[in-house]
């Protein structure tokens, strides 16, 4: 990616999400999931309030780079209102898309941008951090 492409992606998508992240606060919740990258220090906690297996309210809080924060913010916004199974499938599909570099398999424009950002050298872990943590949590819960 060129510098201009990166700047444009940051300006249009990453920075707005980073500066006004969705439901960015610590809350008392039924469940919480920690997403931590010990290599860089990015650390988030995702909070869930369930209503009949429905992820009724999702919040998150923590410290990390603009990309990991924006990615987590998008994740939290999208999965709110899903069932746990739906959220697990949603994370799985996104992670598959990013691991195969196939943004076209996703219909959501924001997610496509995240997958494209994979080409931003060395930042794929930032994008995947919270998605992987949530996916592992839900997978272990259902298995």
């Amino acid at each position: 990616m060129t510098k201009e492409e990166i700047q444009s992606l940051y300006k249009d998508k990453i920075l707005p999400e980073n500066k006004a992240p969705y439901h960015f606060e610590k809350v008392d919740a039924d469940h919480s999931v920690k997403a931590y990258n010990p290599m860089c220090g990015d650390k988030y906690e995702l909070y869930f309030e369930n209503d009949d297996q429905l992820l009724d309210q999702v919040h998150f809080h923590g410290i990390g780079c603009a990309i990991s924060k924006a990615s987590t913010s998008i994740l939290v916004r999208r999965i709110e209102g899903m069932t746990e199974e739906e959220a697990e499938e949603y994370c799985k599909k996104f992670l598959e898309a990013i691991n195969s570099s196939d943004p076209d398999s996703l219909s959501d424009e924001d997610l496509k941008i995240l997958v494209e950002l994979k080409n931003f050298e060395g930042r794929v872990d930032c994008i995947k951090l919270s998605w992987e943590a949530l996916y592992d949590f839900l997978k272990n819960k259902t298995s």
Partner: protein
Amino acid sequence: MRNNAIVLFVVSSVSYPKYRFKLNSYSTQFPVFEEYPELAYLDNAATTQRPKAVIDAINKFYISENANIHRGIYDLSNQATTKYEAARQAVADFIGASSASNIGFTKGTTESVNVVAQSFLSKRLNQGDNIVVSILEHHANFIPWQMLAKEKGAELRVIPIDEHGDLNMPAYKELVDQNTKMVAVNHISNTLGTINDIAEIIAVAHTKDAPVMIDAAQSVSMYPLDAQYLKYDFLAFSGHKMYGPFGIGVLYVADQHLSEIGPYNYGGGMIKEVTIEETTFVKFPKNLEAGTSNVAGVIGLHAAVEYINQLDRAQIQSELSELSQYTEELLQSIPGVKVVRLPKHHSGIFSIEVEDIHPHDVASFLNKDGIAVRAGMHCTQPLLTDIGVPATVRISLAHYNDKSQIDRLKASLIELIDFWS
């Protein structure tokens, strides 16, 4: 031949912006800068670049000298053995060791520290004893001691830093006592660039008969480390941070401890006699080098030592000191940039924070301007926790850097801060 790092650059299609850039007289000896003249490589604390002399020595070995050492009764093997042992002597001379038998080859600093923890200290550490480390330590010189202390019910004592990032020496003197069985500190902090007064640290420890291990990974390339003068008990460093190859390191063991370093790994090439019932081992350093040695790594390390030996290190230190001062002034002149600590005794390593911008984002944007820095915790989590910073951008200088690169760093940081706001 391109090394892996260069191949990665090619794969990721990096095109650095075209600056009018004149290589300084040192950088012309480094092929990577001929390949990428626009690259401002400011990540020397992670690994230095390699001069042509080192790359040529490794290539020459594989092209025309390759054979395994010891026990091969033919010319190539004999020659490889001679070169391998000549490298051991060269390393001994480089740090002023009394003999080549004080020098063991390891995979790197991390392994050297682990060897001392497991092969030397483990058998003499008991409940009620203590190990003294500093808060500045890289995990490589922290975790091996922490784990051993836990295993033995010993205490891990940590020397704090002052507000500048220098070690609190009065506190250190209070921490060392008759029960101290090891003092393990770095010479230069890989995160803050603090230069520790190892002569004083060693002298204090020795008044209590405590041995001292010095992690010289960040200092060995340019700072004198004379074993006879400093009298450290153990010294560890890595080839790849002194212009040598990856995967090769050194453990120096002082004369009085040579017989106390037991085997670390078990395998071939380190034994006196093996029976079904038991095995007896040769002494250090051969008992350290189980299995097939990294012969090419040792040859490359020798070339790195020779490269450093022919430099005017006093002159380079003076130039680096000036470049470091220049970097400090420029970083401090940028609104929104904070150098997290500026030790009074400081080398060319800076950890900075940029207001509202995470270190990873900073490093990614600097990369787009051809500036290579490192972002993260730099394997020093206890230190960053202590100073209350989640991560930093680290700038680390070498003699092949120059002021024009620092000017570019400043311009790039200013542009990024402006873009972000």
